[in-house]
């Protein structure tokens, strides 16, 4: 056999090994395309990329409001009060905000990629006003206070994403590994109580949770000066609910899988949509409005929204009740299903 043949055979072997691993093929080829598609929807140039600009109050009738609405590349959203508009700006749902004062007051965050763009467009729109002289000079308020920066948006999102990943991986992977190695089967021939086994999975998860949340929040608050406005207790409750919910999902996806390879695929499949849509790195308000109700059903969206509101906006129980209910229902449903389906062997 020639040297060339050797090279050919070895190359062929490597390629076949790769192609016969459907997961690898998915992550290499399908995933980037999928990711591009999703990000494409989120950051698409809908009419040369509209920036969302908030106007306060709803009753504002000054001529500049009409000019803003006419302007190209600007999508105007009205708000009742400045507080809720500021929250929207903080959470990334708005790129800039104009407040109706004697002279219109523009709020924007230069640390955001689209902040400067929004400022330019608003200024242009108001100066292009035909009345010329009457055109009101704009006052500009640069937002620099903590709580409105991108990092403030990011920290709760990262925490939520981490709770999802460790919850699903932590509960699911270990169980399938034990099943694959027949350790679960051996446990079932001992007098071990099955309820104790499952409770231990959850308990160990909650113990990890303390360290996990503690480290990320401390890092954000002490090193990056991310504000923490809400109740620590409510925040902790929300984290626990999130952890339980993702443990439940982890338990469910691993309740029947026989191999670690098999369950990894299912876990990625479950996590991927939340990873992309649930507002970890950028606000899901970037996606078309029609998708929002669906996105809000995802448990990670509920977790992230709740964490952000409690942490950044000091929201109380009433303001996150929907999110907490979402997580509770998800926890209950996944646990009940997982226990029904659980395969010990």
């Amino acid at each position: 056999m020639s040297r060339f043949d050797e090279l050919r055979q070895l190359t062929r072997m490597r390629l076949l090994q790769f192609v016969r691993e459907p997961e690898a093929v998915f992550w290499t080829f399908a995933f980037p395309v999928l990711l591009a598609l999703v990000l494409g929807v989120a950051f698409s140039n809908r009419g040369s990329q509209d920036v969302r600009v908030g106007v306060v109050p709803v009753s504002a009738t000054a001529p500049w409001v009409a000019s803003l609405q006419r302007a190209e590349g600007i999508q105007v959203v009205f708000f009742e009060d400045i507080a809720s508009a500021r929250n929207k700006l903080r959470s990334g749902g708005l790129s800039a905000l104009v407040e109706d004062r004697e002279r219109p007051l523009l709020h924007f965050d230069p640390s955001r990629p689209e902040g400067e763009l929004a400022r330019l467009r608003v200024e242009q729109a108001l100066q292009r006003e035909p009345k010329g002289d009457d055109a009101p000079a704009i006052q500009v308020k640069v937002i620099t206070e903590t709580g409105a920066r991108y990092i403030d948006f990011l920290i709760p999102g990262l925490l939520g994403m981490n709770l999802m990943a460790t919850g699903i991986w932590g509960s699911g992977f270990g169980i399938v590994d034990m099943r694959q190695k027949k350790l679960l089967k051996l446990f079932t021939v001992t007098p071990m109580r099955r309820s104790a086994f499952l409770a231990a999975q959850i308990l160990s998860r909650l113990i990890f949770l303390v360290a996990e949340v503690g480290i990320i929040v401390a890092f954000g608050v002490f090193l990056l000066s991310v504000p923490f406005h809400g109740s620590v207790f409510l925040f902790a409750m929300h984290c626990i609910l999130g952890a339980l919910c993702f443990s439940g999902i982890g338990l469910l996806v691993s309740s029947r899988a026989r191999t670690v390879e098999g369950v990894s695929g299912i876990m990625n499949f479950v996590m991927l949509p939340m990873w992309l849509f649930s507002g970890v790195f950028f606000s899901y308000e970037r996606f078309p409005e029609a998708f929002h109700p669906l996105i809000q059903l995802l448990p990670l969206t509920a977790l992230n929204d709740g964490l952000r509101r409690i942490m950044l906006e000091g929201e109380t129980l009433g303001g996150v009740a929907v999110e907490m209910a979402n997580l509770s229902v998800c926890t209950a449903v996944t646990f009940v299903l997982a226990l029904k389906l659980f395969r010990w062997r």
Partner: protein
Amino acid sequence: MDEVDLEVRRGECVGLLGPNGAGKTTTIEMLEGLIAPDAGEVRILGLNWAGEGRALRQQLGVQLQETRLPDKLTVIEILRTFRSFYDQGSDPEWVLDLVGLRDKHQARTVDLSGGQQQRLALACALIGDPAILFLDEPTTGLDPHARRRIWEVVESFKARGGAVLLTTHYMDEAEKLSDDILIMDHGKVIAHGSPSEIIHSLNAESVVSLRVKGTPDAADLQGLDGIRSIHIEGTQMQLSVMQTDRVLPVLFSTLHDRGLALVDLHIHRPTLEDVFVSLTGRRLRDE
């Protein structure tokens, strides 16, 4: 699976011997409560799996085929975990002495040899101080020395009054450990008795294995006096023989008359394997 009647007394071992796929594991897993029988019931120590499972499990020690204990845990950590499942049981350190792993008690499972891992599995089965020990192929894949160490542990358990149910496809293991043997094939028990009873059932004094040049035919030897059974595989013949000293000369001259030159000849006392071959026409180790 056909009906199987089993009696395991204290201080004794019953061996299920048979090739892979004979139904040994199915039988033992039914007894362990892992598989529910299609019909009939399983009662052990007067207890029934339905309803009394937990009480029953307190009394049983089980080693399964192919269990892999967690890699990253140490020997003593694993043993303490298993100890916590039982209301009553032995001190983990004492059990480690028993299986000869005292000096490994801080070692992680992943660093143990195959034989040591198997002894740890045995320790997990013994930790609850069981009345009955179930062993499913306990020495498969181990070297002779490692196998002997496992046997020592099992024998010391028997000596303390424990009852053992063993499955194996090694006839030497069955013969060494068992007081009572069931030979199984295709889900059926095809022989039952003490090792010596089973061997005597061959009704042969010795087994003659020979290889010839040419194609032997069973009919050539059928009528010869003292030959109890004939098993032919290609050029290889295996004969169960009574009165060996009388048979051999006749055998040689018959082969000579048929023009079959002798290539190889062995004579040995009958073993369980020979019984299996004479009953099924196959060897225990045939895959």
